[in-house]
């Protein structure tokens, strides 16, 4: 058994060495981490149009978002007026939502974590566990492509045994300048469940960034959620009192 696994290990080392050169095999963990950090920045402020598309209908919400580091983020809806003021605060893996109509803050119970966020194709878990891709997976570069003349790494990420994640596999496409092009989610049969792709890469606030993100359910052409950045500012830091329950109630104070 042991011998066999050693052989398999060396075999995979050799294969990956042939495929992508030994350098990347060592660097892939850092590559993913750096890409996530690049995408997230130290801190950011943004205004995003979120379009939820379904076969029968479509609606667009405009969201103001602040993020800081890996743990903290605050979202609040500013349009349409009907939903104005609805907010979500995330600190670590905990989330609170605020509904101005009932003027109440609710801490999201575990039962709601797997439900969709604001009716979109993102689940609350997708937001709360955004670090999961770094912590809970082992990554391997399984191919390279080119995109706009730049090299793109195709990374296959398998969940670590016993990691509390539902996906059976994720596939990431990361450009050599650390831009996420896509993230695909597979079930345990390795069938595609949903995929997020970033397009319209352009310079925003001095940094190359995909302006449009689309989360698409597999096999359902007309069910997707699109995020379009209207404004995006990367910051060195944001004040800590921005990410509190009181600012959830009064955003943009």
């Amino acid at each position: 058994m042991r011998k066999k696994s050693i052989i398999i290990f060396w075999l995979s080392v050799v294969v990956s060495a042939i495929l992508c050169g030994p350098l990347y095999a060592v660097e892939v963990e850092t590559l993913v981490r750096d890409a996530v950090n690049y995408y997230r920045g130290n801190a950011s402020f943004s205004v995003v149009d979120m379009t939820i598309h379904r076969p029968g209908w479509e609606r667009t919400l405009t969201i103001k978002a602040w993020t800081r580091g890996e743990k903290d983020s605050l979202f609040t809806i500013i349009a349409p007026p009907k939903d104005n003021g609805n907010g979500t605060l995330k600190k670590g893996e905990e989330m609170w939502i605020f509904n101005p109509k009932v003027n109440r803050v609710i801490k999201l119970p575990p039962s709601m974590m797997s439900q969709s966020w604001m009716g979109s194709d993102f689940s609350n878990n997708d937001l709360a566990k955004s670090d999961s891709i770094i912590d809970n997976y082992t990554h391997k570069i399984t191919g390279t492509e080119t995109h706009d003349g730049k090299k793109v790494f195709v990374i296959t990420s398998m969940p670590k045994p016993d990691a509390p994640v539902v996906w059976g596999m994720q596939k990431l496409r990361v450009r050599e300048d650390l831009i996420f092009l896509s993230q695909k989610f597979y079930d345990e049969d390795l069938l595609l469940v949903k995929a997020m792709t970033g397009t319209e890469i352009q310079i925003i606030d001095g940094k190359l960034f995909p302006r449009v993100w689309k989360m698409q359910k597999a096999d359902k052409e007309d069910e997707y959620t699109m995020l379009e950045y209207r404004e995006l500012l990367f910051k060195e830091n944001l004040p800590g009192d921005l990410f509190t329950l009181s600012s959830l109630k009064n955003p943009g104070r």
Partner: protein
Amino acid sequence: MYLQLGWRNIWRNPRRTIVIMTAVIIGVWAMIFLGALMRGISEQMVRNGITTLTGHIQVHHAGFREDPIIENSIDKPEVVKAALSRILPPDTRWTTRVRVDAIANNARHSGGVTLVGINPEREARISFIGQAVTEGAYLKADDKYGIIIGKALADKFDTKLGRKLVLMSQDTKGGIASRAFRITGIFRAEMEATEKQFVFVTIASAQKMLKLGDGISEASILLADYKDADRIADSLKGVLSSASYDVQTWRELLPFVTAVLKMYDWFIYLWFLVIFIAMGFGIVNTILMAVFERIREFGLLKALGMKPWWIVKEVLTESFFLLILGMVAGNVLGFMSVFALAGTGIDLSALSEGLEFAGMSRIIYPVIVVKDIVAANLVVLVLGLLVSAYPAVKAARFTPVKAMAHT
């Protein structure tokens, strides 16, 4: 003399006798058989209730039953365990469990379940799960990531043995506890609702996931004789103060089942009465006809010096024979149908979706309860004789003169 007279009289018109006897037979059979079916249903309900993680007595932290949240766990299980091993008779089986509401997730599905952390060895001797695993294997005590789920849940989640299931719940610190389990077993239960609701892991992994320490949600006790439940529950209450512990018997734990049991008791007797009323009219009618046919005969008997009371007795004897014959045959038939079905039961799985709602099983085994058999036979015999009194008195009232005038 009455016996001989009565016996000969009923066979003077065999066809009529057989028709009314058939009515009595069918009536008695229906009472016994349907009564046994209803008892079977209710017994199955009680058994289902008790083996579906209830037991005869349960100990909870005070307030857990009203609000089954993790904060209402028993944080000093050793107190409860000590009390149980001191008070319970040696042939009693008991176990401790962790039970919380949780959300199960896989890549495509998510849904609410009840996460039950069990001590595999002790649990197997108490609740249904010990024998229920049909695919894969039952939990082992040191299984850190194994989970057993119901067939219906597996179908709903499009999952199977060896696949992963992520459970999320609230931990004792108020945070979100999540843990990935591998499906190591799939169980079948009497009811689909049970298969959908419960997932089983080892108590140690549940405690670790929920940061419970040694804490437990409940202790469940299965007595050798369920009739002792109240007595033993009382002595447990004496040791475990009601301020911090709730001790309850299955009657309190399963209020719905208890209510249904009571209802069935009345329902069965009502059923007996309804059948009898239909049967009673037949009996009165037949005896009345037999009496009217023999007006001249009764007149003659009277003229010969027979007292009215003797005539009443004679007619009642006839009806007694009818009833007894019908009852004997009806009982035999009833027992035979019950025994014929005792092995296979009646499979209602075609209707099971509707029945499940009422907490009934897929297969019903009729159960004979002595009390019901006695009641059914008494109802037929006593009320049968009572209604026959009317034609009997009528027969006794004919005077010889009137009878002779009657042609």
